[in-house]
């Protein structure tokens, strides 16, 4: 049971929910940029959400099944086909031995995910399979690699109603310990400004641009390096915000104006180049309620899964299906 990588984009890595507990050693959590996509994949495959998947930044690849395998496709929609026939995104599919899965460029958003039925069973490092390229943990998946799933059985051909989070939008933030370094006028302007995602973005962070003056803190250059949380919005020397993502550093000297809530981090990470983003402050109490609601929603995703009913018009090559026997074998 495995999938061999024939071609692949330059920024595809194996990701799960990341590794916690190494902040004091300077190692940030890493993990999927869009955590929701991991949960959606798990729901489609009826597996636990702690399995590892292939995270594809911007561009997918071509994969050949060396044996039958279930897959699911979630996150930023990408063009996908099996042996040349387009297949649905936000859905699970069965790949028969020898079939080729092609995943093209992202259509909206930034990060697409390819899940295997048993998860991608690489050797965990410090309790997680997540690559953390900024910390030199793991590496990008390359052509010729084999993705070996863990043990698996179950159905395929399911779809999930995914939340659209691929075009930017409003990100809810809480004040953090350095928010008070910014004066009231700057904070009000920050909340009123529409930002655009800049060209500099990777798993460490995402730059935002805006018209008008930047957003500087008082005494910006004389701040002692302090702890960083993923989701922190850091103001660089030029007053341009960066949203810090799973491979951020663990401490930093640039002041952070606010922190994006975990429930809105998938939307933040999936903002495409040029996409518009606004920030909205919520109280800490409200943030905790939103967080609880988010976790509850993730736990209930399996109720949004339903069979992928095929319209014959959507099947471009009807003759390739064994319509007589009524069975498309997944094993021969």
């Amino acid at each position, binding site marked *: 049971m495995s999938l061999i990588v024939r071609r692949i984009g330059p920024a595809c890595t194996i990701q799960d929910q990341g590794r*916690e*507990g*190494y*902040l*004091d*050693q*300077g*190692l940030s959590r890493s993990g999927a940029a869009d955590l929701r996509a991991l949960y959606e994949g798990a729901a489609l495959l009826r597996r636990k959400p702690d399995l590892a998947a292939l995270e594809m930044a911007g561009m997918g690849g071509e994969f050949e099944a060396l044996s039958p395998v279930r897959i699911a496709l979630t996150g930023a929609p990408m063009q996908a086909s099996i042996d040349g026939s387009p297949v649905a995104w936000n859905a699970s599919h069965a790949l028969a031995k020898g079939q080729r899965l092609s995943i093209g460029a992202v259509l909206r958003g930034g990060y697409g995910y390819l899940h295997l039925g048993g998860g991608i069973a690489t050797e965990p*490092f*410090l309790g997680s399979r997540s690559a953390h390229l900024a*910390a*030199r*943990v793991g590496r990008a998946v390359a052509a010729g690699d084999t993705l070996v799933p863990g043990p698996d059985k179950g159905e395929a051909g399911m779809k999930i109603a995914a939340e659209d989070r691929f075009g930017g939008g409003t990100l809810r933030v*809480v*004040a*953090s*310990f350095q928010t008070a370094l910014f004066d009231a006028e700057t904070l009000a302007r920050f909340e009123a400004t529409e930002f655009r995602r800049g060209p500099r973005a990777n798993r460490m962070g995402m730059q935002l641009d805006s018209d008008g003056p930047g957003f500087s803190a008082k005494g910006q250059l004389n701040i*002692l*390096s*302090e*702890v960083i*949380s993923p*989701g*922190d919005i850091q103001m660089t020397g030029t007053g341009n915000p960066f949203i810090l993502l799973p491979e951020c*550093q*663990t*401490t930093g000297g640039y002041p952070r104006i606010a*922190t994006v*809530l*975990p429930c809105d981090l998938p939307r933040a990470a999936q903002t495409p180049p040029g996409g518009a983003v606004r920030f909205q402050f919520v109280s*800490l109490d409200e*943030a*905790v309620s939103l*967080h*609880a609601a988010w*976790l509850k929603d993730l736990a209930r995703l399996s109720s949004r899964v339903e069979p992928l009913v095929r319209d014959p018009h959507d099947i471009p090559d009807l003759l390739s299906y064994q319509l007589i026997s009524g069975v498309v074998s997944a094993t021969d």
Partner: protein
Amino acid sequence: MTRFDPFPLIRSVGLDGMLVTFADTMTEQSNRAALAFRGALHEAGWEGVVESSTSLASAYLRFDPLRLSHAEVQARLAALLAERDWYAAPLPSGRKLWRVPTVYGTDLAPQLEDAAMAAGLDVGEAIRRLGKSRVRVLTIGFAPGQPYLGPLAPEFDIPRLQQLTPMVPEGALVCAIRQLIVFAGPTPTGWRHIGQTAFRCFRPGMEPTFALNPGDEMMFEPIERAELDHIRAHNEDGTGGATVEEIAA
């Protein structure tokens, strides 16, 4: 007139963190307080706490806000702070002293002369003083396992370089602002490259993965280049010839 001193200061960090800050500058005392307080947090073992860490002058706590409310964490931190004078608290037990063989200067560490001059010392005296300095792991960060060490004596309060050095190798010993760093991997830096070790701070695939812990102490003892070559040829465990001993509590 006395200035209002807000420290120690408890503040929230994002959705799920609290920070206890002991000063707005790194001093021996504020770092000691942060390490001791974090040690106490660790020992307290509160349910719902996910992890803790220290930065130069703060202790950080991350918790599950659905199991432990912010008000509850704040109250517990305030109570723990009131228990003692953390600026005078002993450092946590279980700390180690590392003695790391180091080549000072030569073409391996070409900015020693420059650093000595900035410190107002001749090269021989700089090596003598650095070689017997015992520094503490103030915090770990920037790269996995990478220690910020100090404080050095006041003469080593030398500024960072304006121009970044494009690349120094793993194990480089660099100096600025009364601190040392042993680099965990090749990196550009504005700190002066004064020594070279074969000490690996981050050892993926080995046990332990991280060589150091905050509060550990280090000495960088001068050796000749030939000795480092010999150490490098037999450095499977990544210790770079360092010896380690427990620091008595």
